[in-house]
């Protein structure tokens, strides 16, 4: 495949482009979706193409083609250069101090983790698993809809640049979900496992076996039915423990996005918004309590947002975003890193596939677990009185990433240090920094899970990205509960 990329690089050099990099992405995916005890969808997709970035005279251009014919590759390079020239012609002053932060021209082969190739697992076995789960859920009286899916993606990515980088990466992503819905004339309640919208990891079929959905199907169906008649979650201010997957989404929305440097610099203002994290606040903002240590770690084994090298050829890294509660840094790219005066890009440029231009995206944005031994049972016991919320149902945050409101599928009252009655329709809200400053306890590494979110949207045109979020359950003092019911 690199010989195809050499054609493009040669053309870019012939045309005297200042810089060019390319990604050839070859991807295969399979989705099996069950609905009400029957296979609702079996689909497979294959995709291959080349995305080409050119930098010329301070202007960027990007084009993409699915044709691997040399003449079409050359034409795509020409298009990218024409776009770059149009960029620099539109704005005659190049960005001041503009440059690409340096990065070695890696020549590497990287393989993501995969113990069991999901594409070699017999389809009968996959269907049998989904059938067992569907039968278990349907056996619970009151269930009106049961669903589940298995999703597998294999990606081969070839990267090359005029700086001499040549990188070949292979990665697998696997996702699974079961979901039980109960409805009556008044209400619709849902329970999901392992988490809402599916748990995804950079892994093979072994992750499906790990999550053992068949062992949880009847439980979530029972809980969905019980929620129909459960008491409504009370409103007010409560000491609240958030479950790990819910906390993962909280991290995504309230730390992952505001720490994207393109947002902070105003480049996403037209769609995704801006960020309250201004560059002058680095080392100057108390973002959270001293327990809050948030990292961006693209090296985390098996996590959904992990890779060897980003889509600019920058090596995967682990970066502190918040340490001891203090804001420390951003997710960056080679050009935004240079604006901020950083020595090196944080390696966060990623594209959905060959057809899209890389933009700054989260990798694995994780809350480091507590250092003091603490299980979820111990945390509940220590809480005395409050609430426990689990599994996301809705999420919303403002365009600067201050005010948020989330709701979860499931809540339990905590009374006398024990989980009590089931509560439905829990929601909570707050301001990002107030929220994180209220975190006063969290579970240890035994309870820590690397959750995976497959559908982060950003960019124009919109792209979807898979991100990871490691989290253990944590407690937040006097969280505002029930804003949705106001």
């Amino acid at each position, binding site marked *: 495949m690199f010989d195809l990329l050499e054609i493009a690089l040669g053309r870019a050099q012939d045309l005297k482009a200042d810089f060019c990099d390319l990604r050839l992405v070859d991807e295969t995916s399979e989705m099996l979706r069950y609905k009400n005890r029957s296979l609702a969808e079996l689909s497979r997709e294959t995709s291959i193409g080349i995305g080409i970035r050119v930098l010329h005279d301070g202007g960027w251009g*990007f084009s993409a083609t699915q044709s691997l014919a040399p003449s079409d590759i050359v034409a795509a390079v020409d298009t990218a250069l024409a776009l770059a020239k149009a960029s620099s012609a*539109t704005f005659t002053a190049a960005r001041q101090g503009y440059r690409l932060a340096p990065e070695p021209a890696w020549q590497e082969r990287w393989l993501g983790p995969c113990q069991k190739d999901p594409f070699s697992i017999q*389809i009968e076995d996959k269907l049998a698993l989904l059938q067992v789960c569907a039968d278990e859920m349907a056996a619970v009286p009151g269930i009106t809809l049961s669903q589940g899916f298995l999703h597998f993606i294999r990606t081969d990515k070839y990267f090359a640049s005029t700086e001499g980088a040549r990188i070949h990466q292979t990665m697998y992503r696997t996702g699974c979900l079961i979901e039980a819905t109960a409805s009556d004339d008044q209400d619709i309640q849902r329970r999901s496992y392992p988490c809402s919208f599916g748990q995804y990891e950079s892994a093979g079929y072994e992750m499906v076996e790990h999550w053992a959905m068949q062992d949880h199907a009847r439980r979530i169906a029972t809980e969905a039915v019980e929620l129909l008649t459960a008491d409504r979650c009370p409103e007010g201010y409560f000491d609240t423990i958030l479950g790990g997957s819910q906390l993962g989404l909280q991290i995504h929305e309230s730390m992952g996005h505001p720490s994207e440097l393109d947002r902070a610099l105003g480049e996403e203002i*037209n769609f995704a918004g801006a960020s309250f994290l201004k560059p002058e606040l680095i080392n100057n903002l108390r973002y959270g309590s001293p327990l809050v240590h948030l990292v961006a770690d693209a090296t985390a084994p098996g996590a959904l947002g992990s890779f060897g090298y980003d889509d600019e050829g920058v090596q995967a890294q682990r970066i502190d975003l918040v340490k001891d509660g203090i804001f420390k840094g951003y997710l960056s790219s080679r050009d935004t890193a240079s604006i901020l005066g950083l020595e090196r890009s944080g390696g966060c440029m990623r594209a959905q596939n060959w057809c899209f231009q890389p933009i700054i995206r989260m990798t694995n944005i994780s809350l480091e677990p507590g250092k003091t031994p603490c299980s979820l049972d111990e945390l509940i016991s220590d809480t005395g009185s409050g609430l426990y919320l689990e599994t996301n149902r809705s999420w919303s945050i403002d365009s600067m990433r*201050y005010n948020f*409101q989330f709701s979860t599928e499931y809540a339990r009252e905590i009374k006398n240090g024990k989980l009590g009655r089931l509560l439905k329709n829990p929601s909570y809200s707050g301001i990002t920094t107030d929220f994180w400053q209220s975190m006063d306890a969290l579970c240890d590494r035994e309870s820590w899970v690397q959750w995976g979110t497959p559908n982060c949207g950003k960019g*124009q045109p919109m792209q979807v990205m898979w991100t990871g979020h490691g989290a253990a359950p944590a407690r937040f003092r006097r969280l505002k509960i029930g804003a949705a019911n106001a």
Partner: protein
Amino acid sequence: MLDTDAAIILIDRLLKDVGTRQDAGRLAFAEVQIDSSSQATSRFANSHMTQNQAQDATTVSLHLAGRESECRLSTQDISTGGLARLVDDAYAALMLLPAAKDPPAETAEPSDLIDSGQILDESRYDPACAALDASERGKAIKRMIQKADGNDQPEAIHLAGILANGQRLVAFGNSRGVRRVYRETFIESSLTGVIRNCDGSNATGWAKGHQTSMRDLDLDALTDRALAITARARNPREIAPGKYRVLLEAEAVLDLLGFIWWDFAATSHLDRLSPLAGKIGEQIFGSNVSLRDDVFHPLQSGPRFDGSGYDRKTVDLVKDGVLTGLVTGSRSSRRLSALSPDIQLTGHGLPEPSAMGEIPANPVFLPSDPRSMTIAIDDSVPTIVLNRVWYVREVDPSRKLLTGMTRDGIFMGGQEPLKNMRFNISLMDMLQSKSIVAMGPARRAAGEETFPAIVPSMIVDDFNFTETTKF
């Protein structure tokens, strides 16, 4: 990108290959769908082009339906070898599948179609739109920036946004002889103005347009609108949350109503995921609310056939507040007709197999007694004007309770800028007669939470702001 002839040739070739395979006798039918597009986006902020990109992509998907099972495989490798592999893999997958409890739904026959002789629909294709190149987009963006630079505000307004254009082709063919091709163009621009407040923070304004023809998108007017809102947004004050009368601009209405479109799909009722299930014939909204799905409306876009090749019909969904109809696809109409013989196939199916079933892709909100919103504002009642809404999510499906934020322009009385607020509102409540004060003329609106549709601006009472934010 493929042209019409190439698309038809490819469909013919693929179906012929399918028909000559050893297991062809096991098939009930085969369908091919082609999605081919070419688009370009110029994106700018901070006085430079942050991205200038062009993409060209064609996806071919093959749906094989046996008598008891089905599968769909897609590829972007449209070489001879690639398409042959597609057929190989599709048959291999189909042979592995057990009999489904819900067998494959039917595909269109030529005799089913009103215009069975017409293959190509290019009624929404504008050659000028397709031809807009990077240089021309750059010039247009320069004009926008110059307008911003030339504004007479005490503080400078910086403009960010996109100008995008392109074309797409959707082609369908099946083993029953149906061939349908649709081609359209689009042009889209959204603009955000940024202005500095006295306290050093920023205020913003926004405007967006999306049309199928360049004639219908006035970039100067769009720029003027974004700049005017931005200028007015400067130095906002905070007000207490609570229930207010609100004028929702059409873009805000769109991004709220987007969360109810699928409730008019038969599958959402069959799956008991909609609070409208079982309510056909009942008064669900105010008598001043009527909704239709109408692909033929002159301001609409999208093909006039569905994922199974059937004609899209115009469907009255809500008439004077009464739920009168649902959109169906091949599968859902079969399931529903077992319950009620009146159920029609409306031609809104997504490509099968699909867990979602179908969707009303061309909604038109028909306001009764549309009025000028300026005249409709009652000065004696404090009215907040919302330019748009943002990050809207469904909190409780049984009430269609939504939460979201205001953004890029919120004004008391249409003039005094306010700080942004979070809302929690029930669509079921908002669309009642007692809540709707007035509606403007319906127009094509483009937001960020759903596809463009034809909706009015609306003045509603008791819009529930629950919290404030810091900007």
